[in-house]
């Protein structure tokens, strides 16, 4: 077979992989086909990897005429075993609650790899004719986007894991530093582009120094981008960084002239972009607002003094009272929130629901679009606890049912139930779609304290005379409720 024929087969395999990614993503539309879709996508990835590896072994490949060296083979094999092994280990042992930070970590390494590919290609072609104007632009874009994703995702992951404080971190001079890194990146792009176009003369050494500066600027920019953003906004940020990583992979594809990188990267770039917008919409916040950061620092509390915010008294409810209300209700809606995820209470909530169902109570779960850490995260957590799928109801579908509900059991959810979002135009969350929990005949809130949610505002729901507060950790509170219901 001629070299060209071999390359044709390789190219077709890449194309098949790209098609598998698109079809795989499409199949993830519905729970019934989602797993198959992911497997198809994985098969496409495997095909692309194996075919590329074999092609690089052939003497006729145009990347390394004569076939790649033994060192290259070793690098690929050992790199795959180490990286793949680490990925496998983390993916197997991660708790479902820690999923978002793992996704963020995979974003980081993906973006880092894309930046490295761009840097390495630049090392090869700097000073040669292969370094054209467009290649140099794609190199800088790949390095900048990949570098920002790498450091930004590490910070985001650290924030969720608690290694980096979750509160917005704003240090003096942060904006100046951010501005400075942007100037370095843009200046570097212009200088390298001009040099590649032959308009200015830069030695290879100077070009490499410029690229190093751009890399450093991108890494610093990633950190200063994510640090001022509060932990509760991390899902949106992770989704945005996911989109960036895809774009960085596409840029790396342009640099090395590889179609499958371009297609897959662009696909993920677009996917992450849409997902980010959906998440920001669900919180009624613009992306710009989130990226400026500082939400939840306490300044937002100024908006809390609206009508009805003062004057009410919080009513506490005893365990037995709560148990009786639940056990003799006809219809109960559970409203799970981030507190439930943190307390790992998804199994306890399911046990309580099972117990109530045995007594003939109709139980369903109201899932706010941003409940948990990421859209759909709460569904995953409840799925892990074997909660039957039809019981999970989305916001628009379940909101009309609250008025026919005897007890709404709010577990670790706060801002998504705050009626101020409907009634108080001064409130920072005004206009955010919420669960109409206050329409239920009675409301039980399991919460550790009166501490406000991430929006930093008081929740009028807790002052509602229909509301009984059960101050406890979500899991402890539910476990005690289960015991109390059993005794009835």
């Amino acid at each position, binding site marked *: 077979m001629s070299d060209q024929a071999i390359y044709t087969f390789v190219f077709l395999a890449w194309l098949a*992989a790209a098609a598998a990614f698109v079809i*795989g*993503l499409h199949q*993830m*539309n519905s729970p*019934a086909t*989602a*797993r198959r879709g*992911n497997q198809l*996508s*994985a098969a496409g*990835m495997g095909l692309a*990897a194996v075919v*590329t590896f074999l092609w690089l072994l052939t003497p006729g*490949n145009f990347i390394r005429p004569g076939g790649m060296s033994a060192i*290259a083979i070793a690098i*690929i094999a050992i790199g*795959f075993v*180490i*990286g*793949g092994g*680490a990925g*496998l280990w983390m*993916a*197997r042992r991660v708790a479902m609650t820690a999923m978002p930070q793992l996704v963020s970590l995979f974003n980081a*390494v993906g973006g880092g*790899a*894309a930046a*490295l590919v761009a*840097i*390495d290609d630049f090392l090869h072609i700097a000073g040669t004719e292969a370094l054209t104007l*467009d290649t140099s632009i794609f190199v800088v874009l790949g390095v900048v986007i990949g570098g920002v994703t790498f450091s930004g995702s590490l910070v985001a992951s650290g924030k969720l894991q608690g290694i980096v404080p979750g509160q917005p971190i704003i240090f003096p001079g942060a904006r100046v530093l951010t501005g400075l890194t942007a100037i370095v990146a843009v200046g570097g792009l212009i200088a390298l582009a001009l040099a590649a176009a032959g308009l200015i003369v830069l030695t290879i050494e100077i070009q490499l120094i410029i690229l190093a500066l751009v890399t450093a600027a991108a890494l610093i920019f990633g950190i200063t981008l994510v640090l001022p953003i509060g932990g509760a906004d991390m899902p949106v940020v*992770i*989704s945005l960084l*996911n989109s960036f990583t*895809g774009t*960085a*992979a596409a840029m*790396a594809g*342009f640099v090395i*002239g*590889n*179609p*499958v990188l371009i297609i*897959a*990267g*662009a696909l993920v770039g*677009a*996917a992450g*972009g*849409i*997902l980010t917008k959906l998440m920001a919409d*669900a919180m009624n916040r613009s992306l710009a607002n989130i990226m400026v950061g500082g939400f939840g620092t306490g300044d937002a509390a100024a908006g809390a003094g609206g009508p009805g915010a003062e004057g009410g008294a919080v009513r506490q409810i005893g365990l037995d009272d709560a148990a009786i209300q639940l056990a003799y209700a006809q219809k109960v809606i559970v409203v799970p929130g981030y507190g439930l995820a943190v307390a790992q209470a998804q199994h306890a909530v399911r046990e309580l629901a099972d117990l109530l169902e045995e007594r003939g109570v109709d139980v369903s779960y109201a899932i706010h679009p941003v409940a948990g850490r990421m859209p*759909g995260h709460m569904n*995953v957590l409840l799925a*892990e606890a074997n909660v039957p*799928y*039809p019981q*999970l109801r*989305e916001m628009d579908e379940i909101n009309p049912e609250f008025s026919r509900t005897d007890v709404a059991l709010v577990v670790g959810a706060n801002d998504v139930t705050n009626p101020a979002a409907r009634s108080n135009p001064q409130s920072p969350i005004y206009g955010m779609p919420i669960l109409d929990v206050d329409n239920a005949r009675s409301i039980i809130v399991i919460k550790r304290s009166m501490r406000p949610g991430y929006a930093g505002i008081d929740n009028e729901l807790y002052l509602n005379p229909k509301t009984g507060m059960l101050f406890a950790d979500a899991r402890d509170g539910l476990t005690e409720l289960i015991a109390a219901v059993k005794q009835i």
Partner: protein
Amino acid sequence: MSPELLNALAIFVLAILVGFEVISKVPATLHTPLMSGANSIHGIVMVGAMIIAAAADTPVSYALAFIAMVFGSANVVGGYVVTDRMLQMFRRREAKVTPEQAETVASSEGN
């Protein structure tokens, strides 16, 4: 710009449009697995790492290619495995549904 680059740009733009179209149809329930699934796909950069490993001829290049390979493979393998773990739970849950409930689910998904 060279014809190759123009072709690549055309592919890039069309792939972005495909991405928008495919994603905008996904229900919120599946957003987390979807994000994770999309996350694994950008692990395709592993193929890029292989290519720079093959092209490498200096110790620095070998080192960069090695790190890129480790990063890319972690992204690919970890991403697909964790997505599969999540989706497995969705399936198991469906298996427990009574036929009657399955019908309601199917009809609500059809919308």
